[in-house]
């Protein structure tokens, strides 16, 4: 019975190697996408341009006089631009990581091809 079990294990291990690329582009890709999305959410929470946009006409630091409102408005616009830009960079970085996940097997495959065939 042990020999049978061992045989089954070896066959499964071989099949597993072929299943690995399929996993990479199916369940693995979904996991990687989730991970990258969580990373993006973290960045959005930290930079929060949405909160600045929602409060664009609310004066900062309780300065309710018209000068305060004016300065606040422009300050918030500047903040939204910079924070928005930062978030965009962050999003691109997250997306790049996901793309790396997707192209990594291709890169490795190409590398092998280049090293071995050339």
């Amino acid at each position, binding site marked *: 019975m042990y020999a049978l079990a061992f045989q089954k294990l070896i066959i499964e291990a071989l099949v597993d190697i072929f299943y690995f690329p399929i996993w*990479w582009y199916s369940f*693995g890709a979904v996991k990687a996408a989730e991970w990258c999305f969580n990373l993006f959410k973290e960045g959005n929470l930290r930079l929060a341009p949405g909160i600045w946009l929602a409060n664009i006409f609310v004066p900062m630091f309780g300065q309710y006089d018209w000068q305060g409102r004016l300065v606040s408005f422009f300050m918030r616009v500047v903040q939204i631009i910079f924070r928005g830009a930062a978030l965009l960079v962050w999003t691109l970085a997250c997306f790049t990581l996901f793309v790396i996940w997707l192209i990594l097997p291709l890169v*490795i495959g190409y590398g092998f091809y280049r090293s071995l065939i050339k």
Partner: protein
Amino acid sequence: MPEAIAPQKILLCSDCLGSGKRNNRRCKSCGGLGVVQYNHGRVLFWRHELTRFTLIYNRLKRIFDKIRLISVVLLALISWFWGGFFIYQFFAAHNSIPTLGTIPEATELLFLVGLSFLCYALYRVSVQRQLLSEVEHFDYDKQPNVDARLESWSEILKVPYRQRRNISESFTAEALSALETAYDLADKRGEEEVKPIYLFNALLSSNRIGNTFVRLGIGPKTISAELERLGFVGQGKPSREPPRLSEEIYHILFEAYETAYSLHQNYVSVTELLTAAVANSKQLDDILFDLGIDHQKLKNVVAWTRIRERLSRQYAALSHAGRFRSKHGMDRAMTAVATPFLNHLSDDLTRKAQSGLTESCVARDAEIEQIFQIIEGGQHNVLLVGEFGAGKRTIIEGIAERMVEGDVPKRLFDKRLVQLSPSSLLSGATPAAAIERLVACLNEISRAGNVILFINNLHELLGVSTGGDRSLDVASTLAEYLVGGNFLVLATTTIEAYAQEVNNSKLSSVFSRVDIKEMDSNQAIEVLESKIGYIEYKEKVFFAYEALEKAVDFSRRFLRDSPLPGSALELITEAAVYTRSKKGADSLVTSEEVGAVVVEKTHIPLTAVSGDEGAKLMNLEEEMHRRVIGQDEAVQLVASALRRARAEMRSQSRPIANFLFLGPTGVGKTELAKTIAEVYFGGEQRMIRFDMSEYQDKNSIYRLIGEPAHKGTGILTEAVRRSPFALLLLDEIEKADKDILNLFLQVMDDGRLTDSTGRVVDFTNIIIIATSNAGTSYVQEEMKAGTSQELIKDRLLHGELKQYFRPEFLNRFDGIVLFEPLTQEAIKKITGLLLKRIGKDLEKKGIKLEITDGAVDYFSRLGFDPDFGARPLRRVLQEKVENQLADLLLSGKLPRHSVVRLEEGGEVKVV
């Protein structure tokens, strides 16, 4: 954990008996499902192949998986080191680092090989860690429905595939492995079926289960030994036929899944299997019961491990959420205004929570929800009213934590919770300056817009006034600002202070009162469980569950200076230190150590604390008769009532016992009360004594329970609150005012009394003894006339006593005991007792007292007076014996080691 899960109805295929296969083919009757349960709108089935072959295969696979993972990681590292070695060689040869173009080909290849191995390792870890499928997410709309559509397989098989769920895929590897071990154990013993006892035995080898039993004070080895003794362990005669899972096991598996589902857990672990196994097997339940573990205790300990897991998850969530909050008191939209002056006089609780410096708040969700409802409902501020130590501040800290996590109503969202410090506000300032500071703070808070103010012990501020009739005081200043509704205030105060200071001030209208009651025992245990980790870590000991249970029980009964859970927390901290000093590090704190600490703190004897005094209670009459002579009926009645109380056969919402002792003076009423205090409560000092002749007018009720809106509380309520495990002696009760008797009517019925401040005092651990001389002359006359005692008592109850007490009052007593006048014989025995006591006093001085029978006869004749009982006897002994002995001692005629003899005629002779 949910209290009761309805017994699960499962449908087991009668053809394949749950395996889903017949003759190695899919069973046609059940479509290969084997065993199902229709629940939460889905068909749940169990499919996890258990055969001798799969057992071997799974075991090998676990080893193989480990070896494969380690090998792959090692190969990746070797490839990279090898590649690195080529780069080093290149560097040594060319004295420069290779560029992309010049990098050796072998290095590039090895780097790629290493990368491939690492990717494969990532895949393996991900696959091995992941459950095949998680437990369904809890749906509040889909409550367990065990009765629906379970009649036939034809109906079950009509359910579409997407609504079917194999629950075995949600079991952790450890849980499945335990099931496999159980199968193996049953197989080795040649059993036909795998029974719960084998599953239980298999579970014992799990670390988590082992720890659970250690917490219950019984190591897994003891349980294994017990199983061995009962013949459930060890080799048997293996059968050719492999075993199959029994129906009980299927019930256990489905119940474990249901428990995980109700707990919103996404996996089924060994702990769920354990509780389900014990719940579904009478045999197991009996074995554990014999070892002193009942099902409820087991469930509580399992819940304890879950509390710890939940707290660590909460802590992680809190520190994650804390990262997004400003550390400078600014809201996220930057609309707030800085509060430099306020910051100087306050403490930012949300910032503390961000840094993890607040205490976790457990078992107070209902109170926090109530506070949130008030806040969401309108403009009202909230005042938490509860006793000192009831956990008001912890609730506020819990709110601070929720504010950091953002799990709060909109009015609290993205705000700061700032605690005003009365000492900083008042220090070095005149009352006028303090009020000025307060006004400055309140102005800042109004402007800031993101501050929720918290004032701990509001009453500490309220006494501050600028003086004079029309002066400014803090209460009105605060009220003025709060009426405006510019900001929200949370405050705390005690029940007493609320009644005396807040209730009559303007503040009462701006605050909504939330009562923070003392925790009940279960809540207190939950709090202890949440805090125990730190104490265990600090003192390097660990606690048995029983120790926590007893700590709460003892605190409730004996340590009433502060309420639960504060008192119990203090007790377990001391028990941890005590255990470490007595038993060393890494030892188990049991209920014994907790009991020992209670004894040290309160000086109540351990037998009284632990209740381990069965033998003593059986001989209670004898014990009492050592001090009380005669009065057999009284002693008998009292002893049986105490035995009932100890065996917990009494009603738990009344005092332990209420007695009325009737009889002439000097017959032993007070002496019997003192004896009870000594025997039951461990000492005469645990007797609270009131001479009711001092409470003859109506107003004296206030002396007992306190006067509303006045400082201090009543002497009766305070005495019982401070020592709730005591004997309450009400001497000469007939002399008390009728209203006071009504007060005791309630106490004897409900076992509680509310004092002037609204605090409820518990009388359920009190023995109430009222003594009375009412009707004495009648009793004496009747006794002289030779009327039987029963008849006298009956006539007394229906005649004489009605002048003094209402029938409903007399009805509240568990026993009305008529003390007989003392006979000459009894007086003689008492004389002997009293002379022995004098002898003991002399013994301390090294002098021996010899008492002759003649002396006893003489003194008892001299001291006998049927109207006054044993009192004249005391006077006689004082005059005739003690006075003479004192003279002899002072004149130096009684040196140490001398012998004094009391002779007939009362003569004192030095021998």
